[in-house]
């Protein structure tokens, strides 16, 4: 067709540029991960924890950053994954780590569906309150079902098999870390594909103007519910990773505190971009680890100061502001 002859290059270039961008991003994650492995061989447990939480933060980003749904109850999805994987191992003897991960993902998806159906009944502040109510209900349910979950003592007795029958989950946490890094990379690749897909575009549309989306004949609610389920898969994998690597699941994984902290990490890094979520998580947890080791008694003040500083000097979040600045420099050069 004549029209397409106009500039077939531009679209192709855009496509190639985004794909290159994604590849660079993935490569960066792997490189940082490998450097982390060699630079902090004794801190792998912390690094694994960061990866698990990063999956939760990514999952919040899917609904908050990409669809505009604010939530303070997302740990429900993470905790569901953690408990499902843990219960499968402790009560049913399903100790294969890959199988546990799949169970976690499935449970996360289910929890995503349930909490999505409730939370999406309102907007704005009432929505935030619904999400708080949901996480408290999940928390109470886990506390009550103590014969399954161990209640407040935590669910212990989770002993995952060697990964692929070859690699034991050892004291040094090497296997858990490598497995976690692998999961993270796979998830980020899939999410890259997702956010660039027609569905990803639809989700961004929902964030910017739901009314316009429905005027195009698409169902806003269905988009949001589907995204909630996907988000549940991601968070559930994070929860399962947590259960596998620490071999115990506590009520904290279903808590308001974790939900709120994860949201703070996301906003810290910058919403609406996968890398923002990762940068936010790493910065927050690393900062917390360093300051709390330096002063276990009064580190909270430092974290508070960091948050205030970010709002004042990097209002789009750390990654968002950096990307914006780089974009401006790049723009001037062009």
């Amino acid at each position, binding site marked *: 067709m004549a029209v397409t002859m106009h500039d077939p290059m531009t679209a192709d270039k855009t496509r190639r540029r985004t794909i290159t961008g994604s590849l660079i991003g993935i490569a960066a994650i792997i490189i940082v991960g490998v450097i982390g492995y060699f630079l902090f061989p004794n801190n792998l447990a912390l690094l694994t924890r960061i990866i698990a939480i990063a999956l939760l933060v990514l999952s919040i980003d899917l609904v908050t950053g990409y669809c505009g749904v604010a939530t303070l109850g997302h740990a429900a999805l993470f905790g569901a994954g953690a408990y499902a994987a843990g219960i499968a191992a402790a009560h049913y003897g399903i100790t294969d780590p890959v199988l546990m991960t799949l169970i976690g993902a499935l449970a996360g998806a289910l929890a995503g569906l349930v909490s999505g159906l409730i939370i999406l009944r309102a907007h704005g502040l009432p929505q935030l309150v619904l999400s708080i109510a949901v996480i408290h209900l999940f928390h109470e349910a886990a506390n009550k079902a103590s014969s399954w979950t161990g209640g407040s003592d935590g669910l212990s007795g989770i002993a995952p098999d060697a990964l692929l029958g070859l690699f034991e989950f050892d004291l040094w946490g090497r296997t858990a870390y490598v497995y976690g890094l692998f999961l993270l990379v796979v998830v980020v690749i899939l999410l890259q594909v997702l956010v660039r897909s027609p569905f990803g575009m639809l989700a961004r549309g929902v964030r910017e103007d739901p009314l316009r989306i429905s005027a*195009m004949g698409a169902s806003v609610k269905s988009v949001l519910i589907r995204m909630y389920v996907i988000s549940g898969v991601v968070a559930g994998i994070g929860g399962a990773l947590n259960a596998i690597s620490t071999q115990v699941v506590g009520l904290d994984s279903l808590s308001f505190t974790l939900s709120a902290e994860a949201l703070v990490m996301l906003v810290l890094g910058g919403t609406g971009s996968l890398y923002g979520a990762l940068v936010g998580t790493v910065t927050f947890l690393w900062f917390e680890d360093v300051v709390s080791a330096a002063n276990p008694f009064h580190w909270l003040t430092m974290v508070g100061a960091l948050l205030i500083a970010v709002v004042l000097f990097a209002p789009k979040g750390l990654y968002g502001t950096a990307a914006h600045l780089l974009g401006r420099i790049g723009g001037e050069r062009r």
Partner: protein
Amino acid sequence: MNDGPLFEVKNLQKNFGGLSVTDNVSLSLVPGDRLALIGPNGAGKTTFVNLVTGNLAPNSGSVHLAGQDVTRSSAMQRVRLGLVRSFQVTRLFYDMTPEEHVALAVLQREGRSGRMIGQFRSMPTVMDEAREILHLLGLLELSQFKVREIAYGQQRLLEIALAMALRPKVLLLDEPAAGVPQSETARIEHALDKLPADLAVMMIEHDMDLVFRFAKRVIVLAAGTVIFDGSPQDVTQDARVREAYLGSYANASSAA
């Protein structure tokens, strides 16, 4: 398809409290219709649009689309049946490009917008159609800019492009030229000329020049009821229309 009109509104009624905002309105459209709906401020045009598109539920009366009763259908379902609207105040995704907008609409029409893998840029049919529509409306050069970076007049054109991409049977244009500087209305008119011939179009508009150039038929709404239904030539001669417009609308139309 049956022999009835493509689109029909029967005895539509909407009350807010004791006030009838839409009072027993009936009208119908056939393929190829070019209808302008006009009326002074407060005549109930916006309410009527919302009733037709399904954003408001009527107290009584019915809406039919292609022989089907859609009175109880949601706005979304009506779009899928071929009733598409544009907005009086631009509603677009400011962080996305025109190309993405139109491609999304095309994908949505084809039922492919839920696909979670692949990019529209690697779907040749979608790309071809999107670029064709953008080209038709003269937006192709802007296709890679963010919408927030392009001029308002062009954003209005993109609204029309979006509607076209959905290939409607009935198109409801809510003041397509609202907020566009006089110098650029020609481009809007130009775009309207390119709408498919068999499409039924209902336009709500204040700009009488545009109405006269575009419409083959005019309906005047005042105080919630239809007071005139006829040709553009006759509308200015009608006594009731003059009465309804005296004062309030005479000023508004010259200002528009």
